[in-house]
């Protein structure tokens, strides 16, 4: 019943958010809440032997396996740093009049509920339950995008809700297909992952194929995969940066998690190859669309958002390859991308605070960046190097080994992917060289320096430290965890 600790913490925090009058304590409470969730996850890892059922209410609704718990921990870390950062960030938003002080409580309540639903989604053993949790994460994250109430934000939030929820309804049809597939074989319908995994090889492959296609539409939209990615750049760029970090670092993983789980079912049937083709094509197109959009991007947060589409695109490519090694690097790429992207959005958020244009539709005019915001500038540079796949950062290894796996499918696929990745890197390099070397006009008045509170600087510095250590040090125990995750999903030993 350890799972009940998560909603209890969320409810306690929400009561605090409603009752506590002091803004300072509200900020602190948000950070403490996400820290408490990390602690509970730590206790769960240390005390519950995985995989485990019966960790939550009802039977067949919740379970904990290594894959789910791993993603709970990753999103827990992202939420913790984002909550720590949110205090200073929202204060600044209120200073500039972008966030009404009355909305601060709503912001933190939304954040707490979002974290709860993301966490529970990774523990869901029932596909129907997972579906509703995915949908709730969309609704509450859209609320956080719209919280600034600027027209651009509302536009972005509505586009986000309509695109993702529409696609998610298709995955509900997929859920119906799965239920019927199970019913036609087992005599009784079920939506429980663990039961479905045991019997997937005996299911009628055509029905399971149809189910996967429908499920994929919803989960692909959730993770910003082509052609359902259209909502992502706007929502990620317009959201407050703490929320952008969560959208990119925690929420995209929810969709990929769904795709991997669904693929683990269909992988056991004769239609695995057809599904692989769908995954590889949509992955490659995602990388392509993102790479070309990044080439002439003039908005830093949009550039980072497109880089998320690029990185998410790599994942279905790897999943489509379907070998245990490919899956091994897919899972590590999810970790590396989450932490790196969160650090990038958090440091980019500081620059956005410094250079925000009074017109919410216009791009930031970055000048004298090393004089005004040296730490954030270096944060963005190091983060960009990391996301581009430079050694010693972990994405270097994940991209390198994913590409070697892609090469086993076709050398042309490798060439195309490599070329697109290089275009994306060129886009990032062009942006940084161009924008970060810009100096202010000597005659014009210099912009005033925005003093960044420690609570905003620490999160991205620590995240960079974590990914650097992860890149340099990959202990045997960690390798064993990732191998077990892949084996647990039925893809065989690494």
């Amino acid at each position, binding site marked *: 019943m350890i799972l009940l600790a998560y909603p209890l913490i969320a409810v306690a925090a929400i009561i605090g958010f409603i009752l506590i*009058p002091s803004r300072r304590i509200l900020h602190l409470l948000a950070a403490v809440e996400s820290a408490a969730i990390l602690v509970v996850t730590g206790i769960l890892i240390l005390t519950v032997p995985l995989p485990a059922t019966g960790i939550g209410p009802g039977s067949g609704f919740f379970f904990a396996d290594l894959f789910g718990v791993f993603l709970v921990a990753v999103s827990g870390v992202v939420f913790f740093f984002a909550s720590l950062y949110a205090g200073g960030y929202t204060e600044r938003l209120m200073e500039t009049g972008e966030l009404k002080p009355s909305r601060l409580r709503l912001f933190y309540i939304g954040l707490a509920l979002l974290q709860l639903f993301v966490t529970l989604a990774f523990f869901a053993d029932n596909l129907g339950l997972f579906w509703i949790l995915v*949908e709730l994460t969309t609704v509450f994250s859209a609320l956080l995008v719209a919280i600034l*109430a600027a027209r651009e934000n509302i536009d972005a*939030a509505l586009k986000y809700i*309509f695109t993702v929820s529409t696609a998610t*309804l298709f995955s509900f*049809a997929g859920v119906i297909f799965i239920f019927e597939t199970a019913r036609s074989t087992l005599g009784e319908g079920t*939506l429980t992952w663990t039961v479905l995994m045991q019997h997937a090889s005996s299911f009628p492959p055509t029905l399971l194929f149809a189910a996967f296609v429908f499920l994929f539409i919803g989960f692909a939209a959730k993770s910003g995969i082509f052609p359902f990615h259209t909502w992502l750049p706007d929502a990620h760029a317009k959201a407050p940066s703490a929320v952008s970090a969560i959208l990119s670092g925690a929420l995209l993983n929810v969709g990929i998690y769904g795709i991997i789980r669904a693929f683990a079912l269909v992988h056991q049937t004769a239609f695995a190859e057809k599904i692989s083709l769908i995954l590889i094509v949509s992955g490659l197109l995602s990388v392509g669309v993102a790479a070309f959009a990044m080439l002439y991007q003039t908005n830093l947060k949009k550039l980072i958002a497109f880089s998320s589409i690029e990185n998410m695109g790599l994942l279905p490519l790897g999943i489509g390859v379907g070998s245990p090694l490919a899956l091994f690097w897919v899972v590590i790429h999810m970790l590396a991308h989450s932490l790196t992207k969160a650090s990038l959005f958090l440091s980019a958020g500081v620059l956005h605070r410094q250079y925000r244009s009074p017109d919410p539709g216009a791009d930031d005019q970055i000048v004298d960046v090393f004089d005004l915001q040296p730490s954030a500038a270096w944060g963005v540079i190091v983060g960009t190097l990391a996301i581009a796949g430079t050694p010693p950062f972990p994405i270097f290894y994940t991209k390198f080994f994913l590409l070697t796996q892609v090469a086993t499918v076709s050398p042309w696929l490798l060439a195309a992917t490599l070329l697109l990745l290089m275009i994306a890197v060129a886009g990032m390099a062009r942006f940084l060289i161009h924008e970060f070397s810009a100096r202010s006009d000597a005659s014009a008045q210099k912009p005033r320096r925005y003093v960044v509170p420690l609570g905003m600087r620490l999160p991205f510095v620590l995240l960079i430290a974590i990914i650097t250590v992860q890149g340099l040090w990959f202990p045997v125990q960690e390798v064993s965890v990732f191998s077990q995750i892949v084996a647990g999903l039925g893809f065989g030993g690494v």
Partner: protein
Amino acid sequence: MTDVSFIDVIVRFIFVAVVITAVFLISARSLPFLLQTYRLQSLLLAVLAGVFSFVDGSTILLWVAALTVVSKVLVIPYFIEEIQERISIRRDLEFRYLAPASSILVSIVLFIGVYLSLGNILSSTYAQARPMFFFGAVIGISLMLMGMLVIFSRRDAITKVLGYLSMENGVLLFGICVTELPFIMDVTIMIDLIILVILTTILTVGIDSTIEAYEEKIRQYSLWTVREDAL
């Protein structure tokens, strides 16, 4: 036997009526009319669930019918009606990408496409054995796609919401015809629908006005509690 053929006639009639409502949702311009059409579509589905429950003796379908009437014939349309009156938008004239006539043509193509592909997927289990249910499943998926057309071809967010709701009706129809989902799933999707409608309509109030007017509207209609004094 007369009973069965009579029920067949009713079910056929409902299917045709559902398709007609979907066509109206794609092409009509008056918002109150669109809302009434949605209401009628939901009512038709509730009747269908009732009829199926009568045939199968399934109490779950009866519950589905009751839930549909309460939520989709009464509560959700009432809420949207209130919002429409408050923001005083009566007509949604703007179409993007597709004008109504071409939308209807696209729908026909979608219909045939769904019929053929679903025939391939479900043939062994359904198409021959239970033609009526198979046809319902085809209409369900087509209704989803037509709802999606509404979402993408209309500019006004409230009309988009109606498109989404109509898509969900498609899912419901598909669900009723293909399998017997646990009732909890129907409740789940209804909760999702209600939250989504509330959030999107609140945001819609904002999109048709300036920020100041938006704040004012929110306060005036107490759509969410504003507690500026508390901070």
